[in-house]
């Protein structure tokens, strides 16, 4: 859970300052990230909390409200980031009860193997984020162990569970010669014939601002670079979708 402050929504009523002796102005809240109760009096929601602690029971209650809609629209429930595998015990509890609803898990696969095993039985689809396929760089940039990634991927493959591979195209982190080459190798070795490439977006900009963080300015590949990638993939009979938001 993290406290945020959206300056645009603040009406300067200073209800938060009245509540908390440490604040002189709302922005000061960033110096007191544990003061969750000081956020409460804000009438407009300019101050608030991202994230919520929720019991599996309550989560199930919310998810099952819409169960008829899932059934009638080929819908389902997707657990996504953070990293659902890091909360596998709780997720397991929930999805067991949601069945036969279609369950998808979006994951980086950077998580202990036993966590993955918790979820194998009841998951219908894994959406696997592939980012950096160089051991050292992955460790440094993503703090992820590629060995774990590969091992987990093999486990899913063995179980023959549906998988979608997603690859965010970010220059220079993921979209560089070496990494693309490794990506193609990975796809071929695993006999994968479909990949979704994600265009980077700035949807998180406001969120970053409200957390007093700077968003890194990532670069997206040029149109012709995407085109080249597409033909490279197609030559190897891999279908590519470029998803934009």
């Amino acid at each position, binding site marked *: 859970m993290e406290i945020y402050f959206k300056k645009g929504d603040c*009406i300067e*009523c200073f209800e938060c300052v009245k509540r908390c002796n440490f604040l002189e102005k709302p922005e000061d809240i960033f110096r007191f990230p544990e003061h969750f109760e000081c956020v409460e009096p804000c*009438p*407009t929601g300019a101050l608030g909390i991202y994230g919520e602690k929720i019991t599996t029971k309550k989560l199930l209650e919310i998810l099952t*409200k819409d169960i*008829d*809609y899932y*059934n009638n629209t080929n819908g389902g429930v997707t657990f996504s980031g953070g990293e659902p595998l890091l909360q596998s015990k709780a997720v397991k509890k929930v999805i067991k009860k949601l069945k036969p609803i279609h369950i998808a898990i979006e994951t980086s696969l950077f998580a202990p193997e036993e966590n993955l095993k918790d979820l194998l039985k009841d998951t219908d689809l894994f959406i696997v984020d592939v980012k950096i396929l160089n051991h050292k760089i992955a460790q440094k940039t993503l703090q992820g162990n590629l060995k774990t990634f590969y091992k987990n991927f093999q486990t899913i493959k063995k179980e023959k569970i549906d998988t979608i591979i997603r690859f965010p195209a970010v220059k220079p982190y993921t979209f560089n010669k070496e990494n693309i080459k490794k990506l193609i190798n990975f796809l071929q070795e695993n006999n994968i014939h479909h990949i979704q490439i994600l265009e980077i977006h700035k949807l998180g900009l406001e969120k970053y601002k409200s957390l007093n963080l700077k968003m890194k300015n990532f670069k997206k590949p040029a149109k012709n670079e995407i085109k080249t990638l597409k033909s490279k993939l197609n030559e190897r009979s891999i279908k590519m979708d470029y998803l934009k938001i």
Partner: protein
Amino acid sequence: MKESLINLLGKTPFSPYLKAYYTIYQRDRSAFLQTALRTKFIHSRKENMIERRVEQLEKVCKSAKIYFTPGERFFYSIDTRLHVIEYPGYRRLGNLTVDYSMLLEKGLDGIEKIIDEKLKNKDGYLKCLKKSLEAVKFYRKRCIKESKELSSILGKVPLEPASSLEEALQSILFINSLLWMYGHHLIGLGRLDKILEPYYEDYDKSKELIKEFISSLSKYYKFKSNVLPGDTGQVIVLGGEYNELTRIFLEAMMELGLPDPKIVLRVNRNTPDDIWELSYKCLKKGLGYPLFSNDEVIIKSLQEYYDKTDAQDYSTSACWEPLIPGKSADQNNLANINLLKPLEHALNGFSGSFEELLEAYQESLNKYIDETIDAIESLKVEPSPLLSLFFPDSLENAKDIAHGGARYNINGMLTVGMGNLINSLLNIKRLCYDKKRIKTQEILNILKDNFKSYKSLRFELENKNLKYGMDEPEVIKLTNKIISMLHEKLRGKYKFGLSSPSYLTEGESTGASFDGRLAREPLGVNISPIKFTANMSYTEIFNFASELNYSKAYNGGVVDIIIEKSLMDHIPQKFIGLIKTAIMKGVMQIQVNVLDPNVLLKALKNPELFPDLIVRVWGFSTYFKDLPREYREIIVKRALEYSKYGD
């Protein structure tokens, strides 16, 4: 104030004219003088009201100018200069649908036969009906003399039964045009796919005819519009049972892309997939219709007053309030109950528990309803021999539909401000009882101040706490409790519903409210959240709406949602699944506006640059540019909220 002045002037001999001029003024202030000068008043000095009305009809039939352009397939002429004078102390019937199937099966001659047979034993009203019928026939004769072409078009119908689709449509158009000229407003068309089924020919021919029929009906758009442009009440009800004509009407409307007439689609478990798909396409095109009406909920609820077989044949009045065509003389929109008003009274000097507050609310609501009923019942219903001719029970009973001749006479009211009331009550419960931060005695002062010294409180009221439209047991229970209060009071006398067109006008005369609404701001729209926020979703609103007690409140119950055009484009099957599921779960009616917020923002600045932009207001579709500014603003505001948070 203006009304009472009119009533006072009502005592003078000029009064009927004054009222007429006032009506003309209200309908289009800018063109008042121009319209008033060309208006031809239809007046009668007869003592007896029914005779007076017959004479007015005769005058309409004798003096209406006939407009016909050679080459047109259908004859549909309305002399818009005619103004049939309404007499003080009377309320004119409108907002209903006649039984066109009787006209098609029997023709005017057949109807005359029924009257003649009955005339043998009785006198009185039947004679008036006979005279009225003769007036209609006289008008037809005049039309035939007008041109050779017309004499062939009207050679057989409406006198004889229709024997082809073309004849059936012409017969309907002929009578429909007279109803309008005779001064009845918001005239619906009923279940045309069902009525016309016996006359269906082949697909292409039928479609061509239906398209021309619709084009005829869409004429005289301005003349037919009631309060706002587009508010014509020309509702075609389709479905319930489905046939090729259901498809043809939907396709024809979609291809023509007109805002008027509008379609209400009756849906149920048996609604075929292709009908859902056609509806999706219509909505995606931005026409604002069809409005989906849930057969199972409505037919079951209607049985409070209506026979089951009749309930199954339901159609709707101008917006969405159910009635039985040709059988109900129901006036479904007689009054608007502003649910916020009684709360002000209840809070006056109040101290006590939350339950006691609800009791005080009920008491003050009852008083408010009594006053409303008194106002309604102070007016007599004006007879209409023309309408009565097409109400089979009226012929059978030899009684005008204004005097109980129709099978059903169950009038209805609408409620407005339910969302504002529920949010106010939830806020009072949270702040005065749970948190004990504010005393109930302070509330009225805060509201009178219009939140000037309580800025942050207003935001808190608006943004925090449970809200109307949320799928939360406490919200649903409280809403159903208010519904029960209304039902307890109105039961046996009036129906009521949960959707009303008066959110703007009633809002203007209502002070600030404890849901954070400022004085004079609009009230909530239909069964939709007051504000669509990040923690709401379409499914949440539908889940909430499906839990409401429609068996008590069925005089219209519309969930009004807005979907962004770009989202709608990508999700045909998901959209259909969403609506189907909502209906299956028990949502009564659903109205969908498909809008592009970027286009709307531009159109708000320059409406004339977007002459074809259609939006849905109240229960009708209309051109955005024709709407008064405040209506345009509400639509844009809501569209932006849904665009930001709709998923």
